[in-house]
Every structure is written in C-alpha cells, then in structure tokens.
C-alpha cells in the first residue's frame, strides 16, 4: 500500500517540471531571510545598539541607571524561576489627552477676562474675574492638541505676561490600572540582560511594581508606617511564600522553596531577598523625551532608595 502511495506521489508531483531549481531556491531563500534579518535585527541594532543612558535635565538624573548588585542577582532569580512566563514588563499607552491651563495672570487682567468670556469659560466679565481669582484655571480638558494650542494662544494674545500652558494626560487601560505612568520605551530596557518584557499577563504587569501604590495591587494593601521599603519587602516575601494567603484566588505558584523553615518561622533565603530587591528596582517613571509625563506627577529620581513616588494613575 505504502509503496503504491509513494509511487503515485512521484507521478503526481513531477508533472511537467524538469528543470533543476535547487540553486534558485537556495538563493531566493537566502535573500528573503537576509532581508528579514536586516529589518528586524540589524536595523534596530543600528538604531539602538549604541544607545547610552541619557541625562534627564529636569530631574538632573541619568536614566536608566544600572541595578545594584543584589537587585541584579534578583534579576537572575526572576529569570531562572521563569516569572516572565506569567508577568509582562511592558506598559502600553493609547495616546495622550490634551488640555490647557492658566496658572498666573499677567498685567492686564481686564483683557484676560474678556478673553475668557470670548472662549466661553465665563458668562460675563464679573464671572471671569471670579475665575481669575482662583488660579490655576482649567481652560480645556480632553481636547485635541491643536485646540489646546489655540486656547493657550488666545490667552497669550490677550495678555502676553499671563502664564498658560498645555497640559496632557497619558491614556490607556494599563495606566488606568496603576501599572505605570507612561508607556515603556526602548530606553527602559537598556540594562536588562536578558530583556524580560514577557509575552503573557497571567499575572499583573510588573514594569513598575517597585513604585506601585499598595492600593493598586491586585490584592490591595496599605502602608501602615513610613518605612515603605520594609513594608514592601514584608508584603512581597509573604506573597512569594503564600500567594493565596495574600490574594485569595491567585494562580501564582507558591515559592516556598525560597524560604528556610526554622523554629522562628519562614526565613527567606538569599534568593528571596535578591528577588525582592529586584522587584523594588522595577520602575519606569522617569519622563523621557519620547514618553513624557504630566508635570503634576511628582517624580523622584530613580536613584533614590525610597518609593516616594507611587504610581497613582495619571488622573
């Protein structure tokens, strides 16, 4: 039966074509593979291969900074335990929402008031003056960039000493969950080896877990003291040892083998401590030229050791 199958196959498959196209196939295949390699490997390498940490003038920090030793060991633990198979480290953003804001009046409040009336922000001059009394004043929210520019220009035309600025808000489901304050960019991964951006979200995104507000965890909790790192560490260790004790219904594996069972209770091994240090180092909250942050968000330099700036959603 099988021989027959094969014989008839030979007959069917060889109808007509007698030319040896072997070399032709090799050449074509090589060319197309080379093309994709140029596009997806060499192209990005030329664009990013030489990238260096950049100086962020506003904050006077260099970003990104290399991890400290313990956190770097923790990155190895994270990779070896395969956390990246459940946790992504990439924050998505779906655009910006613009607005305009008046922060200080200039020298001719009367003209300013008239402009506000013209923009429809006040019924009459008296109303406008009342508005001007309590600055900052929102000139527009959730508008197109061009309209925000128009609002600022109108105010400046009326009174060129007045201080008006365009505001924006980063938008997206991830940001709304408090998983980050801006999108992830190429610079964020400069010192990661390997890059563990992940491809699945069985668990929450961890790109910013080091600065996540406790109430934004999937199992919310609260700081009870000012020693936030100690509390962060305690929570993470408890969660690693017994995720379902902290987050009922969680499907995260319990990493009990990262702890020694002693008389005084569970004592974290070195790997657990390193892992916590790594989690604490995960933050993408420095504004970058291609991923800016609204100025209202108070951002502390990433180099400090305290999670002062928590990721409240950009509201």
């Amino acid at each position, binding site marked *: 039966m099988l021989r027959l199958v094969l014989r008839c196959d*030979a007959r069917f*498959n060889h109808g007509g074509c007698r030319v040896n196209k072997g070399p032709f196939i090799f050449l074509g295949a090589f060319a197309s593979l080379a093309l994709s390699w140029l596009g997806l490997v060499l192209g990005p390498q030329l664009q990013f291969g030489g990238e260096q940490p950049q100086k962020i003038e506003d904050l006077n920090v260099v970003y990104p900074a290399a991890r400290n030793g313990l956190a770097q060991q923790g990155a190895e633990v994270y990779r070896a335990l395969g956390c990246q198979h459940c946790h*992504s480290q990439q924050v998505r953003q779906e655009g910006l929402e613009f607005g305009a804001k008046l922060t200080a009046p200039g020298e001719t409040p009367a003209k300013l008031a008239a402009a506000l009336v013209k923009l429809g922000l006040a019924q009459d001059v008296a109303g406008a003056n009342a508005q001007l009394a309590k600055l900052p004043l929102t000139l527009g929210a959730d508008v197109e960039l061009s309209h925000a520019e128009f609002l600022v220009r109108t105010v400046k035309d009326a009174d060129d000493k007045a201080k008006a600025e365009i505001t924006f808000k980063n938008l997206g489901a991830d940001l709304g969950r408090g998983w980050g304050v801006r999108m992830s960019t190429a610079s964020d991964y400069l010192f990661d080896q*390997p890059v563990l951006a992940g491809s699945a979200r069985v668990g929450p995104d961890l790109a910013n877990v080091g600065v996540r507000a406790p109430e934004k965890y999937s199992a919310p909790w609260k700081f009870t003291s000012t020693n936030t790192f100690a509390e962060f560490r305690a929570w993470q260790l408890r969660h690693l040892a017994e995720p379902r004790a902290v987050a009922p219904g969680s499907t995260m594996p319990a990493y009990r083998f990262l702890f020694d069972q002693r008389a005084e209770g569970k004592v974290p091994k070195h790997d657990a401590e390193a892992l916590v240090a790594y989690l604490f180092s995960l933050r993408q909250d420095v504004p970058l030229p291609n991923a800016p942050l609204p100025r209202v968000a108070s951002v502390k330099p990433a180099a400090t050791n305290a999670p002062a700036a928590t990721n409240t959603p950009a509201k």
Partner: protein
Amino acid sequence: MVAPLNPTIPPAAFSSATGNGTEPAASDAGGGCGGCVARGPILVLMGSGILWLVAASLLSLIASVKLHAPDFLGACPWFTYGHVKPAAASAFIFGFASQAGLGLVLWLICRLGKVTLCGWFPALTGAALWNLGVTYGVSKVLVSGGSGQEWLEFPHGASGLMMLGYFLIAMPALITFRKRQVPGLSVAQWYLLAALFFFPWLWVAGNALLVCEPVRGVVQITTGAWFRAGLLNLWLTPLALAVIYALLPAALGRPVRDRGLAAFAFWTLVLFGAWTGLAQTAPVPSWLVSLSNACTVAFALPVLAVAVNLELMLKSEVACEDASPAVPFLAFGALAFILGNGLHIFGAVPYVAKFVALTHYSAGVGALLLGGFVMMSLLGGLTLALPDLFEMDWPKPQLIRPQFGALAMGVALTSLALVVAGLQQGRALRHAAPFLDAVKGGQLFLVLASLGALLTLAGVALFALHFGLLVCAVCRECCGSCCGATPASTTEGAA
C-alpha cells in the same frame, strides 16, 4: 510488500492511480543490507521524536493544570510553572517536531528521489548528538530554569550539540538529495530544501545574538521576534507542509493541482515568514511594529494559496473510509494551518490587538499551529512512514482512528478554550474589572484547556504504544527469521 491489514484500505484505491504497479518496490529505499542500515538513523530520529512527544505532552499538561490549580506539584521547584512551561515548549519543538521532521525529511528525500540514504553513520551520530543536546537542554530548564529567551532556553552546550548533530544529519540529506534518481523538484521538495537551509541560520543567529553574545536592550525583543517567527514559519511550517504536499495528494489519489499557485505560496511564505512575530505591544519604535504588522497581514497570501491548493485536493471524491488512515491527520493539519494563521492575522489587527495582546489568545493560536498543524501533519507522516520503513503494517490498525480522535479533540479543545480565555481576559483587562476577577473569570476555560491537554496526552500515548507494538512485532519477526523459529505470533500477513 505487506498486504494492508486494515480492511478499510483497499489497495485498489491506490493502484488504480499508479501507472506501473509491477515495479519492484524494494529497489527504492529498502532492499539489501545497506538499505537496512540506511533506515537506522531515520528510525532513530522518528522513534526518539515520538518519545519526546510523550514527554512534551506530559509537561504541557502539567503546565496547563498549574494555571488553574497552582498548588499541583507545587512543592517541587523543578516543576514550577516557570520551568515546565518552557521545558514543554522546548521538548515539543526540538525533541519532537524538529526530530520527527528531520526523520521525515530523510525518508521523503529517499522516497521521492528513489535513492538510499548516503552516509547513514554520520546521520546516526547526528541523531544521537541532537538527542543528547535536547536531553541536556530540557533537563537544565527543568532543574535550574531557561535562558529567559523564549524558544532559546537551552544553555550553549546543548545548542552546540544540536547544531553539530544537525549538520551531521543535513549533510547526508543533501548528498542523498543530489543523488536522486528522479529529476526535477516536487512541491514537497521545495519546502524540505528550504527548511533544511533555514534552520542552521536561525539557530546560529538566534543563539549567538540572544544567548552567547546578547545584543543590548530592545534589540533582544526584535531579534527574539525574528527568531521565533522564523522557527515557526520557516522551519516547522515547511517541514509540515512538505509532509502534507508529499503525502496528501498521493493518499487521496489526486495531484497537486496548480503548481503556479503552489510556487506563489512557497515564495510568499519564505518572504514574509520571519516578519510576523513582533507583538503589537512591543516597546519598540512604531515603524518596526507597523512593518511587522503589514507582513503579518501579507502572510495571508501564502496561507490562502495553500488553502486553495489543498481545497482542490480535498474536494476529492475518495470517500473517507477508502482513504489511507493518515488522511485525517494530514487534512486536520492543513485545516489547522489555515485556521491558526487566520487567527494570528486577526489578532494582529490593531483594534483586536488592543484586546488580545499579552493574553491567553496567543497561547491558543500557538496550540493550534504547533499542536494542530505541526504535530498532526508530522504524525500523519509518521503513520505512513513507519510501516514503510519497518516493512510491516501497523499491528493494530483499528487503533489509528481513536488516536486521531483523541488528538483532534484534544487539540481543538485546548486551542478553542485558550482563544476564548484570551478574549475574556482581554475584555476584562481593558475594562476596569479588578485583576483577580479577570483571573477567576478565565478559570473555566483554563480547566477546559487542561482537559484538551489530557486528551492530547492520551492520543499521543496511544500513538507511542502503537509504535511500541510495531517495534515489538518487528523484533519478533526478526528473531523469528534469524533463529529459524516460525514467526507464528507476528501479525504479518503474507503478501
């Protein structure tokens, strides 16, 4: 030739299609002791491929169960989710698919070219090295975790052994190919040559740039995407398509209709194949994402062309019960190729991607492409190849149907459940639903996915068992003929 024991396969279905039924069959790959030895490496590749498939199915069942019952095997660090998941994928791709695929490539090269394998010894050594590499790699992933690069989880040593093994197998394959007695190239041979050519480039470049001397930062993301898309679309896919194109027309008694269309499918596949992997959400410049996206959509061209090509064949009048038992496997594989890629392209549409990116959806598509398309096509190939190589029919042909049934249902259930779980998860995550509610909402589908994995494992185990029976029968017959005892117990019918 052994008479078909399966009463549902009348030899007439095939012999009517062959012009010359008297040609001595033993001349093409079998006869003589040289032929016997030449089959060694092919059988080793296929046999160890089947064993790896059992291991891989078991590991993916464990990984799948852990997603809804996280404490299952929870105490053992080897079997933590972050180890079993990559171990299962590696065992499947490198242990089973690549290995059984290489075995089938050697077999097809001999068969389609009517030659005996040249250089059986290097090929056998190669098979041994490949297995050594995969064993080392998978154990390393289980014991201490992978490299963190998906599908490239193995340590250098393992990848190096595999590369060496690959060359020792591919060289004899190419030499044998050049010695073929049948001039010209069939569609199956295009795919098989291309696959043989692509693998070493992908493997060397992938390992060099991501594991040995890693590129920095996001270049790792684009390189990883290139490697994975390449491995799927330029290595596993051509292997499986070669099997389908070689065997389905013959098994159905119908030719590949339109060689022009087949050539179009081939070249578009080769052109766009490596581009389709970059996720919508990847934190890389948007020009790259757009380019990858455009190529993903363009990948519909080869898929449609293959679909039309095969549709012409599948519209055959050969009634199902007349067809070879391999036909359902091959047809399922072809269907899964079309559906799986269709879902992949659908998931790349920017609006849809907002929902499905980073969810179980891609796991579902992966299950359909790897389990449905690659696994089923290769098993269909093995169903035909193994009896041919052993010169003995399957001892229990009635087992082939249940094998197919369990595998088809298992793969379909797993993929469907994961795709639905992904859609559900994507919807919940885009809306304000608390994360844990989204997790709970997906549990049912993940349980169903595990059920599918269980069925798949059952089908695979049955296949392996059947293979074991075949090997036993061959051994018995061998002993019988050597020692002069009557092979009364063998199931062989007289030809």
